[in-house]
C-alpha cells in the first residue's frame, strides 16, 4: 500500500520543519515540504497529499502579530483549496505558529464561515516567551481524529503568543481538544501549568469535523523517551507521548 503523503506548508521563518518531518516519518508517512508561494506557483498540489501540516516557527518574523502575514496569504489565496481539502476527508494540522496561522486565516474554529475571525491567540500573560513542559488533558468527547483513544499528554510549549482569547459564547462553542492541567490532571491550575493564560486553559481545538486540529504545544518534540526532561529519573517508556498523534493521523489518512 502506498505511503500516506504529508505536505508541510512553510513560509519564511518556519522552523519546526525538521522535527515535524521526523514525527510523520516515524509514523510511517512520506513528507514533502513547500513554501506557500510554491503552492501559488503550482509547483506542488494540495490534492497530492492526504495530510497538510503547518509547523511551528515565526513566519515572517511574527511581525505585526504571530502568524498574521502567512495567515493572510492562506486566507486570500488558498482558503477555498484548504476547505475543499478537508471536505474531501483529508486532514489539516497546525502546531504553535501553525495554530496561530489557522486561526488568523479563519480556518479554525471552522464555524460561521470565514468572513470574520471569532477568536485569537495573543501575547502570553507573563509577557515572556515560555519554553517549558506542560501537562495536557485530552477531551475524549471531541470529534478530533488526531487524539482518538488518548487521555493525557506531557509535551513542551515554546511560544510567546499562545493565549487563546474569545468571547464566552464563542468559547462555549469551541471544539476543545486539549487543555492545560497540573501534573495530576486538574484544570484551573494557573501559571505556569497554564503557561500563557489561555481562557479555560485551552491549548488546542479542532473544527466540527475533527479533521482540522491545531494546538500550541509541540507533540513533535516528544517522540523518543530521551526527549523527556526527566528521562534520567523516571521509568523508561518506548516512545514519547507526542508520537501517538501522528500515528493516529497517518492511520486515519490510510483510510482516505
Amino acid at each position, binding site marked *: 500500500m502506498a505511503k500516506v503523503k504529508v505536505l508541510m506548508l512553510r513560509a519564511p521563518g518556519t522552523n519546526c520543519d*525538521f522535527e515535524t518531518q521526523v514525527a510523520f516519518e516515524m509514523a510511517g508517512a512520506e513528507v514533502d515540504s513547500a513554501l506557500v508561494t510554491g503552492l501559488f506557483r503550482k509547483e506542488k498540489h494540495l490534492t497530492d497529499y492526504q495530510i497538510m501540516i503547518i509547523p511551528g516557527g515565526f513566519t515572517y518574523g511574527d511581525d505585526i502579530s504571530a502568524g498574521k502575514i502567512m495567515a493572510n496569504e492562506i486566507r486570500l489565496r488558498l482558503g477555498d483549496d484548504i476547505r475543499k481539502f478537508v471536505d474531501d476527508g483529508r486532514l489539516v494540522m497546525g502546531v504553535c505558529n501553525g495554530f496561530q496561522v489557522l486561526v488568523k486565516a479563519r480556518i479554525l474554529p471552522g464555524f460561521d464561515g470565514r468572513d470574520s475571525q471569532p477568536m485569537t491567540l495573543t501575547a502570553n500573560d507573563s509577557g515572556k516567551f515560555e519554553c517549558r513542559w506542560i501537562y495536557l488533558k485530552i477531551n475524549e468527547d471531541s470529534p478530533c481524529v488526531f487524539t482518538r483513544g488518548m487521555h493525557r499528554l506531557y509535551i513542551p510549549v515554546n511560544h510567546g503568543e499562545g493565549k487563546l482569547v474569545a468571547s464566552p459564547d464563542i468559547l462555549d462553542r469551541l471544539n476543545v481538544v486539549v487543555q492545560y492541567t497540573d501534573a495530576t490532571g486538574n484544570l484551573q491550575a494557573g501559571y505556569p501549568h497554564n503557561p500563557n493564560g489561555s481562557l479555560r486553559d485551552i491549548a488546542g481545538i479542532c473544527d466540527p469535523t475533527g479533521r482540522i486540529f491545531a494546538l500550541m504545544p509541540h507533540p513533535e518534540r516528544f517522540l523518543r523517551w*530521551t526527549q523527556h*526532561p526527566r528521562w*534520567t529519573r523516571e521509568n523508561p517508556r518506548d516512545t514519547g507521548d507526542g508520537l501517538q498523534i501522528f500515528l493516529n493521523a497517518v492511520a486515519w489518512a490510510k483510510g482516505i
Partner: protein
Amino acid sequence: MRRIEVSVKEEYNDPRADGLEKDILDLGITAVSRVRLVNVYLLDGDISDSELETICRELLADPIVEEYTHREAPAPAGARLVEVAYNPGVMDPVEESVKKGITDLGIDSVTAVRTAQKYLLWGDISGEVLQSICDKLLVNSVVQHVVSEEERVTLRSATYNFSLEKIDIENMDDAALMDLSNNRFWLNLAEMKIIQDYFRRLSRAPTDVELETIAQTWSEHCIHKTFKARITLGKEVVDNLMKSTIMRVTEELDKPWCLSVFKDNAGVIDFDGRYAVCFKVETHNHPSAVEPYGGAATGIGGVIRDPLGTGMGSKPIANTDVFCFGPPDFPHAELPKGVLHPRRIFKGVRAGVADYGNRMGIATLNGAVLFDERYLGNPLVFCGTVGLMPRHMSQQGRQSTGDLVVVVGGKTGRDGIHGVTFASGELNKESEDISSSSVQIGNPIVEKKALDAILKARDLGLYSRIQDCGGGGLSSAVGEVGETTGVRVDLEKVPLKYAGLSYTEIWVSESQERMLLAVHPDKLNQIMKLFSDEDVEATVIGEFTDDKRLQLYYQGNQVADLDMDFVHNGLPQLERKAEWELPRHPEPDFPQPADLEDDLKAILTAWNVCSKEWVIRQYDHEVQGGSVLKPLVGEANDGPGDAAVLQPLPDSNKGLIISNGINPRYGDIDTYWMAASAIDEALRQVIAVGGNLEHIALLDNFCWGNPDKPDRLGDLVRAAQACYDIAVVYGTPFISGKDSLNNEYETGAESICIPPTLLISAMAVVDDAGKAVSMDCKQAGNLIYIIGDTYNEMGGSHYLAIHGYTGNSVPKVRPQEGKKLMNAIADTMNKGLVMACHDLSEGGIGVAAAEMAFAGGLGMRIDLAEVPLGESIDRDDYILFSESNTRFLAEVAPEDKEQFEKMLSGTPYAGIGKVTDNGKLEVYGRNGQKLLDASITDLKEAWQKPLRW
C-alpha cells in the same frame, strides 16, 4: 502620509505594558500609576480611506484584543505622551513585513512604511521623572529618538552623486597620519607609515575605500595581531602567541578526527564518519554595550553565519551564550557617565539573543551569566553556534577564475559602518555618538530564509565556495575569498536598503544577514531560480579574476586597485612588551562561623551562582527536537544541569555534549590558573554528564583589556601558556577561537578594564546519548561519593568573596592526575554505575551538594571527615567551600558500591554521605559536629530568588 495607531483594548491586559510598569517600579519610580502602549504605523503613498480601513482591519489590528484609529489620537486627559521612533537609517524589520502584508491585500498604493512606539503614562509625573523614564527605559539614543511635536518623519531617502575621494597621505607628517587614523582607522603610527610607504612607491594617493580596506583587514578584530605578535615577557620571547600555545596543542595531538581547524569560520571535527560538526563562539561586546538588544541580536545572527559559512556550509543545530554584566543591583546614581545600567543591558541582551535565536529555530542549550562591577562599561556577550554537515563537505571550497561573486540575503545599508575598527578601540562616554552607525537591528527572518535556501543550493552543488559576510562587511569577506585569485567587484550592483550610500559605505557596511558565494557561470541560472523561489535576494556583484588584485568599480569608475599580497601580508609582525608579577591580596582573616547555613545561602544567592531560569526559559531549547540533557534538569525541571547533551540525528544515538568553563575571579590572582581552571571546568562538565576525554574539542575566547598596556599583555601570555600546558595533557585539541581586546572604558582620567576573561567552550562526541547522566539526586538511600582531592585553595573562591576577601591560593590544575581521574569516572558512568553526577566549581562541595539535593527534591547527609585532602586543611568551612579543580560528586546505588569503588581504585575518592528523604542538607565536620542543617526548600529559594524577574 497616513498614520495608524493600534493598541490593546482597555478590557484586555497588555503584558508589554505590565512589563514596563514593573521596570518603572524597579527604577524606584512610584509616580506612574498606569501605562499604555500604542503601535504607530506611518504609511506613505496615495492611500484611500477605504484602503486604510482594510489595512487596519485585515492586517495591523487583531480583531479580538486590539483597536485602531487612523488619526493621531491626542494624549488622554491626565496622561503624559511619549512617542519613540528609530533614527533615520536604522531599519525596523517590521516595516518590510508590513509592506509585504499590504501588498498581499492587493493594495499597491503604499510606497513606504515607518513604525513608532507611543507610550501613555498616567500618574503625577514630573518632567524630570518622565525624562528619567525615557533615558533609562524607553529611548536608546543610539538608535532611537523621541518624536517631537513638530517633527514630520521623512520617508524619502537621500541621493548619492559619485565623486572619487582621494586622501593625500604621501606628504603627511606623523601627527597628520595619526589624526587621520584616530576614530576612523584605529591603526598605530607604524602601521600608518607602512601604508604611506606603499602608496609612495606607487606614486599616487590612495582612495578612501583603499584605506578603509587596509584598515579593516589590519584591524585587531580581523587579523588578531596581538596574538601573532612577538612578545617579550621578562627574559622570555614569545614569537606568535597563538601558534606557540593554542595551535600547538592541536598540532602536537594531531587527532585524526580534527577535520578543519583554525582555517575556516568554525573548527570542524568528525561526528560519526557520515557527518561532521563544527563550532564557533564569537563576541559582540562593544555593540551590546551601547545598544544591548540590537547588538546582542546581531551577535547571535553573526555567529550563526559562521557554521553556515564553514566548509561547504553546515546547518546550525545549537546555540550557546555566555554573558558578563555589571551587578543588576548597581546604584543608578553611581553609574559612570555614558554607561547603560547593567539591568537594562542584561534585559536587552537577553531579549536580543532570544528573539534572534528563537526565530532562527536553533536550540539554545548551554550558557552562563556572570557579574562583576568591572563589566559595567564593557559587558561581554559571547554567542556560539554548532553546525552539522555531511562529512565530505567539511573542507573550505575553492573558487576558480571566472566564478561569479554572488551576495545572498540581506540588503546593504549604512549599518555597522566601522564596526570592526570600532571593536578594536576602547569605549568612552562619547562612544554612543560615534558608534551610532555601528549598531544595527537584526532581521532574523532574512537570515533564516537565506540559510534554508543556501543549504538547498549546497546539496545541489550549486556553488564552489561560501563565506559569511560579517565584521568588515564585503571588504573583509570578498577580500578574504579573493586572496588566492584576485577579484573585481562593481559596487553599484550591491542591492541597497535605501539610496544615498557612497561606494565606500557599500564596501565597508556591516549590514547583517549577508552571505557570499562563488558560483560557476554554468550554475548561475539554477541557483538564481532557487533563491528567487525561496524569496531570497541574490545578486551577482563581480567576478573572481586571476591577477591577485582587488579591484573595485563604481558605475564604471575604478575606486580601488590593491595588491592582495599587500592587503593580506603587508602588516609586519608587531613587537610588544609584556610584564607580569604575582599580585598579593590580603589573606583572609575571619573565624569559622559555627553554623554554615547563612554562608551557603549567601553563596547560592550570589549573582554568579544563582538560578538563571529566567533567562533559560525564554530561549527555545527544544527546537529541532535534539535535546537529551536540557539546561534545566531534575524533579521539577529546574536544577542546574552541568552540560547540554543533544542527539542531532533522529536515527542514531550518537550524542554531542556542549559545555563551557569560565571564572574571571581566579584571574585576579593569576590568569595562568584561571585559564587552567576554565579548561578543567569545561572538561569536567563533559565528564559529569557521561562524556569522556577521547573526543573533545575546545574553543578559546579571550576578552581582555588594552594589549598595549604591558600588564594586560602579561596576563594574556600567562593565560595562553596555561591553555597549552593543560589541554595538551588532557589530550583535548583547540579547533577554533577568537579574541576581543581593548575592553576598557575611559571615564576621564581613569580607565576601567574588564577582568581578564577567558571562555573555554567544549564540544564532545559520545557514542550513546542515552547513557547521559543528570546532576539531580535520584533515590534516598543511595551513596554519595566525592572523586578528586580537595586542597586548601580558597583564592578567588565565592566563600572568600562573601567574607570580603580574594586571597591568594588560587585553585590549580594537576592535569596528569586529572586525566586519570576523569577517565576512571567516565568508565564507571559508561557502565551505568552513576545515578547522578555534578562537577564541583563555584562554592565547592557545599553548593554542589545543595544543588544535587534540591534538584532531586531529596535530602543529603555528608561527612567532611571523609573528604580526601591533597594537603592538610584545618578548617571545615574551607573543606566545604574550597574550589579545587577536577572534583565530582557522584550518586551510586548501594548494590553498585563494590564495582564502583573497584573501578576507581588508584584515584582519590571517598564515600562521604548518602541521599536522604528528609528534605535536608546536613553537613558534619571533622569532629562530628553538625555544621549545617538546612531545608532544601530554603536553599532552593535562596538560589532561585535573585533572578526571579
